[in-house]
């Protein structure tokens, strides 16, 4: 009897311990990133680091402004392509397609979500880069190519989150609009979707996070030149690719500057995460 009681108590704490691991992990990630990155920022100077337009580790110039701009351009481009298609597709799946078609489309969206980013990157390299080179300007490795590829990659995220929030809207909203004489499309677009707007917006925010954090696929199509771009047909480097490209051989301050790049990316992602959870909570209320 006593052994059983002891077991119960011990196991309770074992479960508690496993639950705490995710807190520990987040704290460790923050501590290690900031402890290794912030000193480098201080040494380089915050203004020089964040605002400097020259990244030349050989000459001691560590300005990541071009990379910040690159990440913003590429992510923005991905949103211009991915958001309209993603939201329209989620509306199609939630309110337009018959059940039988949905049974086909759902696995397709899941498959899009499951394809590894390296496979997307390879596809971008062998199909999209030549396509952009032949039909537009430049050598094909450009902001445009990366935006196209990322636009495809964020589709499944946007579709699944936005679809479930549209499905969560009460049927009576739709029926009420129909009863007032609106067509099916008008009911869906002017009543159902606006009712789900915080969920749809959360889907977009999640898409931003995906696009901003994507590394391997972007690296293979974006050109990776660390400069401020003047056209969408030019190559650029993003925060994520800066880390992967140079971490292999970087030492000392160079290495720390790369970790500091990671810190900047991490802060961006945290801001996005927080706005996502705020939106999600608002959607529930």
């Amino acid at each position, binding site marked *: 009897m006593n052994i*059983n009681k002891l*077991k*119960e108590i011990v*196991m*309770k704490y074992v*479960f508690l311990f*496993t*639950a705490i*691991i*995710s*807190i520990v*992990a*987040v704290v*460790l*990630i923050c501590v*290690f*990133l900031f402890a290794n990155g912030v000193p480098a920022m201080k040494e380089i100077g915050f203004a020089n680091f964040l605002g400097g337009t020259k990244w030349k580790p050989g000459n001691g110039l560590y300005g990541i402004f071009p990379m910040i701009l690159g990440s913003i351009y590429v992510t923005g481009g991905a949103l211009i392509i991915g958001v309209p*298609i993603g939201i*329209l*597709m989620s509306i*199609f*799946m939630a309110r*337009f397609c018959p059940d039988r078609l949905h049974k086909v*489309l759902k*696995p397709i969206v*899941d*498959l*899009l979500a*499951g*394809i*590894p*980013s*390296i*496979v*997307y*990157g*390879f596809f971008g390299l*062998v*199909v999209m880069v030549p396509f952009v080179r032949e039909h537009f300007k430049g050598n094909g490795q450009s902001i445009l190519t990366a935006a196209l590829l990322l636009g*495809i990659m964020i*589709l499944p995220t946007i579709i699944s989150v936005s679809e479930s929030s549209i499905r969560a809207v009460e049927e009576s909203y739709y029926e009420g609009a129909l009863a007032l004489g609106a*067509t*099916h*499309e*008008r009911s869906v*677009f002017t009543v159902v979707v606006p009712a789900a707007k915080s969920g749809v917006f959360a889907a977009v925010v999640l898409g931003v996070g995906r696009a*901003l*954090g994507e*590394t*391997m696929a972007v690296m*293979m199509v974006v050109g990776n030149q660390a400069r401020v771009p003047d056209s969408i047909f030019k190559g650029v480097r993003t925060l*994520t690719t800066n880390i*992967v490209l140079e*971490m*292999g051989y970087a030492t000392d301050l160079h290495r720390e500057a790369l970790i500091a790049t*990671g810190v900047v*990316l991490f802060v961006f*992602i945290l801001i*996005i995460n927080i706005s996502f*959870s705020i939106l999600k909570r608002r959607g529930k209320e």
Partner: protein
Amino acid sequence: MEKNITPINQLSWKDRLKSYKKHPGSFILLLLVGASAVITVTVLVYLVGYILIHGVPYLRPSLFSLTYNSDNVSMMPAIINTITMVLLALLFSVPFGIGAAIYLVEYAKKGNKLVELVRITAETLTGIPSIIYGLFGMLFFVTALHWGYSMLAGAATLAIMVLPVIMRTTEEALLCVPDMYREGSFGLGAGKLRTIFKIVLPTAIPGILSGIILAIGRIVGETAALIYTAGTVAEAAGVMDSGRTLAIHMYSLSREGLHTNEAYATAVVLLIVVLLINGLSSLIARKLEAATK
């Protein structure tokens, strides 16, 4: 005059077209929505088709020979490493993920501050991009713990990455177990621990499995988190050795640019794994649905 009575909610195509004439805006919306579906499906079919058509012819038996050398860039060592990596990462993440979910569902009281914190941090972990995990793994496991570039460091990094996936799916599966089961078990005199292990967990197994399968998919496809933790050595690796998984193998091949055909073949293998994983998880989901109905 002839009156034909049609049910109001079952319009024929003719009626629909007529109504669209009156509402051109609605028709445009319909077209847009349809077009987006066509685009999504086309992109997927084109991508998968392109890779299969270009990759399948190069799936020669020599690509699966046991040793790697620069003439014959065999993917067999990478396949072995991928399996090792999956097993190791699951070994860390599954017990912790399931344990955490059990605590959240079975022990924690509602409105507990700690539970809130666990949920927020798990959500945060979900949103962190894999390159940040890679950086952290490099700083913590590789450097601070002196594990060096090793499968163990890679697996530990990935374990943190997939932990929230397993936690969330297990939590959902546990919440789906009716309270009746627990009450029945308590009523028969079983303790809390016994109820969890003999009644609740067995009932929740399909849901937990689907989470594990999702996690496997992420581990197999991961690149950015592994380059600077597990490294890129192209040999079958032990736990403390550096070794490349299939996804990293493909990255190295396409980066070197000398073995494009082999890169296609590797992409085919990766796609097949993803297809299998997705098939399995939807099979389980369907079984779950049938069981709850």
